[in-house]
């Protein structure tokens, strides 16, 4: 009993518990089917959909890629991916700025994943909310384009702390912008010493094969 007559009860519970439970259910579903899942996070326009297209080209003929697109509104990204002839679902999150694990779980349960080996989840374009909510993924990939500025790891610390791969994109534009790659590398390593960093340009092709090789190798770990 407290002086005001109220009772204090200890709870000690994570606020993200229900999201964590849904993420655990996704992880179990993926483990059972031996599907390797990537959660792609970045600001709008950093190159998430372009990376997905490059991965689809890499895995073409090898089969087994499924894609889930997250956006506030529209089916634009899903339509773009559908042209590649792969299974794709669009989640419109409306007022929510990230994909909720419960929503992803129900979408995955509706999909035919019998042939799927690699699942690519493109989160809603921002560096804040998607960082907070695990989706049961095997690896989290954060993309940062050089046009966004090199201070992003300072401004959005959590996403850089929780990502396994950092992909610095559009490096063909480095001569035209002020972007200190080493500054980003140092900050990202402080946030997460184990982070793997890639520098790529999808249009010029630089660095892409190394990144795609790495993702292919990661996927193979779950055979």
């Amino acid at each position, binding site marked *: 009993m407290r002086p005001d007559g109220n009772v204090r009860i200890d709870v000690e519970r994570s606020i993200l518990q229900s999201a964590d439970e849904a993420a655990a259910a996704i992880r179990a579903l993926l483990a059972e089917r031996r599907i390797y899942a990537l959660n792609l996070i970045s600001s709008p326009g950093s190159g998430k959909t372009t990376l997905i297209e490059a991965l689809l080209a890499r895995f073409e003929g090898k089969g087994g890629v499924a894609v889930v697109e997250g956006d506030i509104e529209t089916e634009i990204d899903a339509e773009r991916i559908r042209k590649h002839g792969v299974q794709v679902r669009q989640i419109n999150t409306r007022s*929510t700025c990230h994909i909720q694990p419960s929503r992803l779980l129900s979408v995955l349960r509706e999909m035919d994943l019998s042939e799927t080996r690699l699942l690519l989840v493109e989160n809603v374009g921002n560096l804040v909310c998607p960082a907070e909510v695990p989706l049961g993924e095997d690896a989290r990939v954060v993309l940062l384009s050089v046009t966004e500025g090199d201070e992003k790891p300072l401004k959005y610390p959590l996403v850089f702390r929780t990502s396994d791969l950092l992909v610095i994109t559009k490096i063909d534009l480095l001569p035209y912008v002020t972007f200190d790659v080493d500054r980003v590398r140092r900050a990202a390593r402080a946030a997460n010493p184990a982070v793997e960093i890639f520098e790529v340009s999808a249009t010029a092709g630089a660095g892409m094969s190394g990144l795609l090789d790495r993702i292919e190798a990661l996927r193979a770990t779950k055979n």
Partner: protein
Amino acid sequence: MHELGVAAEILDIALSEAERRAAGKVTSVRLRVGVLRSIEPENLSFLFEHLARGTPAEGALLEIVEEPLRVECEACGVSEAPSFTWECPRCKGTGVSVTGGDSLSILSLDIES
């Protein structure tokens, strides 16, 4: 606005705990929030107050215990920083790794029994 989802989750947990203990009203919720979470306390309180209207948690206060950033510096050991940095707050070295500051949990509730 990422505080909206967090506020909704806090309310859900508070209401289910209160119901489990047959409490009439929730008067206060204590939280631990790490600086890495980038939660704006005023925004969180505003959204919680709005969502809690018409529930047993209406008018409940959110008491936020801030968790500082914890960094481990190669040169000078463990340190804390009140705001976000990837440098050691003491020696400004960059040989640091972040070891804490991402809590997001409910510590306790005050209820009218």
